[in-house]
């Protein structure tokens, strides 16, 4: 019984040693180079389990072949119209030819340095063909950012692939900046623009207000004048109607009308302060004196 156990132990031990020494795995997104005494004997780009000779005969070198992101450095570049602009790009890249990458570079840091240099050279040569307005302009027709990015990308990608086995997935502008001397003049320009707006707004505000109040005054005067006109039309109508009423009566009997109107006028002209002097032999006091 114990012999069987011993055999089992030995078997498990052997399996573990064999698994550790003679196999290795390649994970998805990684590639592997097998170097035997320093010489590359095999590469594996597909994930899975593989055999190898144990250390120190075979050495397994793994590289991350996933998409990598990097920012390029800042390059001050002269445009076609002799204006300095600072350009930063970002690059998404991956190892495409693991063998070339391994022999020419062998490390990510060095790869990024080389890519940065390639991009800087490409930037300088491409931007020399374009004016600043290809990068910065309110006229969309003039903007050629995509064209510029593509040209830089193509130049960088060609060299990166043929020299280092690196595939540039994309290269685009991340930042545009101006040298310190230029930025001061941009600020001055910005301030001048703003001040122009301030005086423009104030002038416009005052002009608009003057127009509105002026129109309102004119309109109000017109409304009042119309009102006045209407009122005097009504007054005229009133006089006409009153005249007609009296006229009809006068036509009926002018003597009675005049008599009555005179009496009414008399009555209207008298108040509490009036003193009336009358003769006793005249109406109505003639009743007392019996003169009539």
């Amino acid at each position, binding site marked *: 019984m114990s012999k069987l156990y011993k055999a089992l132990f030995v078997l498990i031990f052997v399996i573990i040693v064999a698994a550790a020494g003679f196999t290795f795995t390649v994970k998805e997104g990684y590639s592997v180079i097998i170097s035997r005494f320093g010489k590359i004997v095999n590469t594996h780009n597909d994930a899975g389990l593989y055999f190898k000779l144990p250390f120190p005969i075979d050495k397994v070198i793994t590289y991350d072949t996933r998409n990598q992101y990097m920012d390029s450095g800042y390059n001050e570049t002269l445009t076609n119209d002799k204006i300095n602009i600072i350009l930063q790009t970002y690059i998404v890249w991956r190892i495409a030819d693991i063998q070339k990458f391994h022999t020419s570079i062998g490390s990510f840091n060095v790869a990024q340095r080389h890519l940065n240099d390639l991009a800087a050279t490409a930037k300088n040569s491409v931007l020399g063909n374009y004016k600043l307005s290809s990068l910065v302009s309110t006229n969309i027709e003039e903007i050629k950012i995509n064209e510029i990015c593509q040209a830089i990308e193509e130049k960088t990608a060609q060299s990166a692939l043929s020299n280092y086995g690196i595939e540039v997935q994309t290269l685009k502008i991340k930042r545009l900046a101006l040298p310190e001397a230029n930025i001061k003049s941009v600020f001055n320009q910005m301030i001048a623009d703003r001040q122009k707006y301030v005086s423009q707004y104030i002038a416009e505000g005052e002009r608009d207000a003057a127009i509105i109040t002026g129109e309102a005054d004119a309109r109000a005067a017109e409304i009042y004048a119309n009102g006045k006109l209407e009122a005097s039309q009504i007054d005229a109508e009133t006089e006409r109607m009153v005249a007609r009423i009296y006229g009809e009566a006068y036509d009926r009997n002018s003597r009675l009308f005049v008599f009555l109107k005179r009496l009414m006028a008399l*009555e209207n002209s008298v108040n509490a302060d009036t003193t009336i002097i009358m003769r006793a032999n005249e109406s109505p006091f003639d009743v007392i004196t019996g003169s009539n």
Partner: protein
Amino acid sequence: MKNRVFIVFTQIMEYIIKYFKLTVCFAAVLILLSGVYRVESSQVAVVLRFGKLLGNTSEKQIKKPGLHFALPFFIDRVIKIPVHTVQEIEVTTHYKPQGSVVSSDIDRNGYVITGDKNVILIKAKIKYQINDPVRYMLFTNDAAKTVDGIISGELTCITSHSDVDSILTSGRAQLSSDVMQNSQNIIDGLKLGVLISGVELTEITAPGETIRYFEEVRNASIYKATGYQRAQEYASSRILGAEAAANVLKQTAISVQAEKLTKARGEMAEFYGLYDQYSRNPQIIMSGTFRQRVGAVVKKAGKSIVIPAGVEAPTFLLP
């Protein structure tokens, strides 16, 4: 003492040998159970068998939430990916806190140049989700950093042909939607496995050196708006006042008309009342009316003096 330790050790070994089968079985069960895993509701999982992605189709590759079984840990490796969790990053490439000076050290400042050659600072908040877990997990090294770079780049490219006033005001929403759309196109081209669900421009401001002047413009524009408002208020009250005054004139004329007509009609009512009588006997009506009226006049007057017949009228000295 040493002896005692030895005795305990041999006893343990004896137990292990005695229960060897049981120990082996227990270890085997533990190893088997190491393959059981649970995928939470906000996640999916993929399994790497000896490093290779398990399954040929994406349906088989992606394990949905629930309990799953994989081979023991040294064969299968389970990677859980939070696909339903909204991830958030803040892009501050073009932003330095308000009031800061744009320094000569390009690495320490951040801004965009607008199409009309102004400099402004923009901060953005990006929300995204993983829409392709396999591409996201296995083929991209640092998706968050890549998204940050792409968004920064698109902010640069789009603002470089927009004018500063539109970015600061009405063009803000358009800028954010353009950045989102262009960035998503680049992300799709790179197959990052990421879907941007929102680009929020949390801060857009002028640099510290010029911010005072932008404030002044804002104040001037408020001045313009309030001046306009005040003028409108003046105009409406002025017109309403004029309408009211005109109406008063008209109403006065109407009421005067009514008054005069009433008076005239009243007077003439008396005329017509007398008229019938008068046509029969004019003398009586006239003298009767005369007396009645004069009586009323005398009554109304404060003072009346009657001079006897035949007496010469006295001379009155007016005060």
